[in-house]
């Protein structure tokens, strides 16, 4: 049924938008929590805007680098320096839900990249670390290239994601 298929697709997009929101805050939190992410983000040119998007019309999530930290820009339209576009929501969800490794999705051409590919490698390293905080070891064993090591507990990471976003958004540290 066409209507049912449309509804399911809308549902998948809504789910992707939720994951993007968590991931968006998660990455910002990880810059604070984890020196490995901090080191990578410090290497990004000041003001770099990075976006993950699902074609053709979103949802999407963006960050902007500022003073060695990241600012969460949410799902609004921005001019991106690095734009990673998943070709479809169906190609994106397994990655976003921690079922498929990020690198495998690139290998399978599920996403295209516009911008500096070195920056894309740095983003992937950061996402791997964020996944280590967001997902349990049972999942990360299958999707990460190395066993996840954390500088703080899952719980701390979630607290940072959920309750300290405002101050992190301000880029105070």
């Amino acid at each position: 049924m066409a209507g049912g298929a449309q509804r399911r697709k809308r549902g998948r997009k809504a789910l992707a938008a939720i994951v993007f929101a968590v991931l968006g805050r998660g990455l910002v939190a990880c810059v604070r929590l984890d020196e490995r992410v901090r080191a990578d983000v410090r290497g990004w040119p000041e003001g770099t805007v990075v976006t993950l998007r699902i074609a053709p019309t979103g949802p999407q999530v963006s960050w902007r680098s500022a003073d060695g930290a990241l600012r969460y820009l949410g799902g609004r339209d921005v001019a991106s320096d690095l734009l990673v576009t998943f070709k479809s929501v169906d190609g994106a969800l397994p990655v976003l839900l921690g079922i498929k490794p990020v690198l495998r999705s690139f290998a399978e051409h599920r996403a295209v990249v516009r911008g500096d590919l070195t920056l894309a490698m740095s983003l992937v390293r950061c996402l791997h670390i964020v996944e280590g905080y967001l997902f349990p070891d049972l999942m990360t064993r299958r999707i990460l290239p190395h066993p996840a090591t954390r500088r703080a507990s899952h719980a701390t990471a979630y607290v940072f994601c959920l309750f300290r976003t405002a101050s992190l958004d301000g880029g105070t540290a």
Partner: protein
Amino acid sequence: MIPDYYEFCNSAKVVSGKGAIENLGFELAALGASRPLVLTNAQLLELKIATIVIDALADTDAEVVAVYDDVPVDSSVAVVNDVARVFSEKGADAIVAVGGGSVLDTAKGAAIVLTHGGDLMDHRGAESLMGRRAVAFIAVPTTAGTGSEVTSAAVIKDTERHVKMGFTALSLLPDVAVLDGRMTVKLPPRLTASTAMDALTHAVESFSCVQANPLSDCYARAAIGLVREHLPEVLDHPKAHAPRLALANAALLAGVAFSNAMVGIVHAMGHAAGGVAGVPHGDAMAILLPHGMVFNLPVAGDRYGELLLDLAGAEVYASTPADERAAAAIDAVRAMTRMLHERAGLPLTLCEAGVLPEQVPDIARAALDDGALSMNPRQPTYEELVEILKAAL
């Protein structure tokens, strides 16, 4: 083994063999073009290699509107923009690129500028360029190594902004790839060996990378077999056209394989060693390939075992127990690089290639940032990269 999902594209027409160059006029006409710009470098004109192409075109309906011979060793954005300018000014409708990797990459860059306009920098990325190419594009490789005549990738340097820009897009694939023994017959042994090891590495890496698929596997295996069989022959008889053509085919086959299945850790380290210490690409491949294979052995052993057939031949494959084939495949690669060391002076270690021990950390860090690493079947840590590079010193 069939992956859950894969993509494969090789849309370039291949014209290979005796008199292939003389068919350029027909191929241009078939593409609806008649005003080619010939892109090459001064050395190839001097050696009368590019001249073969220009002379052949003079004998056709096509009119060569410009010969652009100012392509430097590393393709740069300034040259790309200049080629695009000349192309437009002269009213050209096709690029015939005659040269090695840098000439072909420059042609790809110019095609991007001519099709999409603006700053080349804005078009960097992987598969992000949409739409058809605006100009016809024929590639005539003069080395048997990069496979650039059938790959959808290009690397172009921005010498002012000090960045290396990477591009992959199907619209970068040439319309036609022309292989002719005359184009590579003057390559000196050292360069022949180095470029052949680049081709071999494309084949071995693509066969063991995460995106290997049944189609790319065929190309990779055929490429390896041709290198094994014909590289010694080329060193014995450098002026003979037939083995040269076989090596050119090997490079093309390996190019198709890696354009689709990608390369891995050996290329990541090789790009880094090139950037940090100026090690020529083929030399880096020859030095690092066995070391990369040793690192990948725990996860790619079965695949390497399969490759023993192509790397060493049926007799060796059949007489080697299944559980020893992967190690034997690495030995076969080592034997080949040793042979090239003795016969063509190819370096066997990074030290011989001019790398200083204190450069290892920088090379390891640059390798971590290299896109090729992401397709390797086993992801190394920084420390592991340092260990591999030290072993290759």
